[in-house]
């Protein structure tokens, strides 16, 4: 599983980093993003969904969030 750590990165840099990371992943592959609570966990999942990726789940782990998604078509 690809794990992209976006903790400590603020909006919109975290979303742009997520986009850049997803460029290196094949369609259909799963990726985990580590996100801070607050604005990042509120905004980044929605933006990634709007880009055509499939959100699979969200879980809270030790004060941050792990978002799992499947990369959508290019």
């Amino acid at each position, binding site marked *: 599983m690809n794990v992209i750590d976006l903790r400590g990165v603020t909006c919109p840099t975290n979303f742009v980093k997520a986009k850049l990371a997803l460029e290196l992943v094949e369609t259909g592959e799963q990726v985990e993003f580590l996100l801070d609570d607050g604005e990042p966990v*509120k905004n980044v*999942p*929605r933006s990634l*969904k709007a880009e055509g990726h*499939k959100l699979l789940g969200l*879980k809270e782990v030790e004060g941050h969030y792990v978002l799992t998604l499947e990369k959508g078509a290019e």
Partner: protein
Amino acid sequence: MSEQNKKTAIDLNNLKAGGFIKERGKDLFTVRLRVPGGRLPVERLKKIAEVAEKYGQGAVHLSVRQSVELININFKDFDAVVAELGEGDQRVASCGARIRVPTACGGCEYNPNGLVDTQASALEVDRTLFGTPTGHHKFKVGFAGCPFDCPKSAINDVGFQGAVLPELHAGDCIGCGLCAKTCSDGALVMGDDQMPHFNPEKCTWCGDCLKVCPTEAWQAAKRGYTVRIGGKWGRYPLVGTLFATFLPENQVEAFISEVLAWYVEKGTGRGRVRLGDLIIQEGPESLLARLRTKFPESVVDATIAPQIINTQVGTRRIPQ
């Protein structure tokens, strides 16, 4: 030179709806342009720049209500300015006791928060109601696409805010909790059954749950405008209060027309009174009842008068 030749000829029909505002300097005016919703096609922007360069003195002003204002225009050039702007399909706006050019945010076409097409609403109201005389005071309309409310809808005489009522299709929910995490209002919490539980009392109808849901389990039960009436700014600001919820987008013009009819009727003989002050004087029930007969699906059961903001300066006139 004869006396006759010194006379300036101006087409006074151009001045009917206002939009020409006296400046400090002799002979100089500001010409306020009509830019509904603040969206300006580039071709029109070029024409404005051309006219501003030719007749102005090097700058334009962007008004708070999304207008481009040509500044430092000599009144002798009014006809030429109007004619040349007209070549680019650019019209002059209004001032005075009339329905003004509606403001709007970017709407839903490209703004990810937008829930309704505020640009379409602004264009429709501009087309159908712009410049209508009220007989009493100015009348402003504004459209916000969502409860973020960047255009500050509640300080308009009639302010519209896009809204969506969420409804869970439980069979499609995977219990991921993204909606509850996204909800800014505490209206969604995950239950012990790993399903989101909705508290409609807390919801401001922003639609964030629909936008984030991975499986489209959240759907729109209703979509439309939250409508607040009686707002204004200036010396004695008022925040408009709630008169309708989920007003369908295609009823906006009819709704404003009905509010205007009440305002024209109730304000007669009361001087230069703004809608919000008139509602305070009359009480909100009469306007509410009138709107309910035409918009029974949307008008709220009860409301309060426009809310006075204490600016801590001056003594607010007590409405008679």
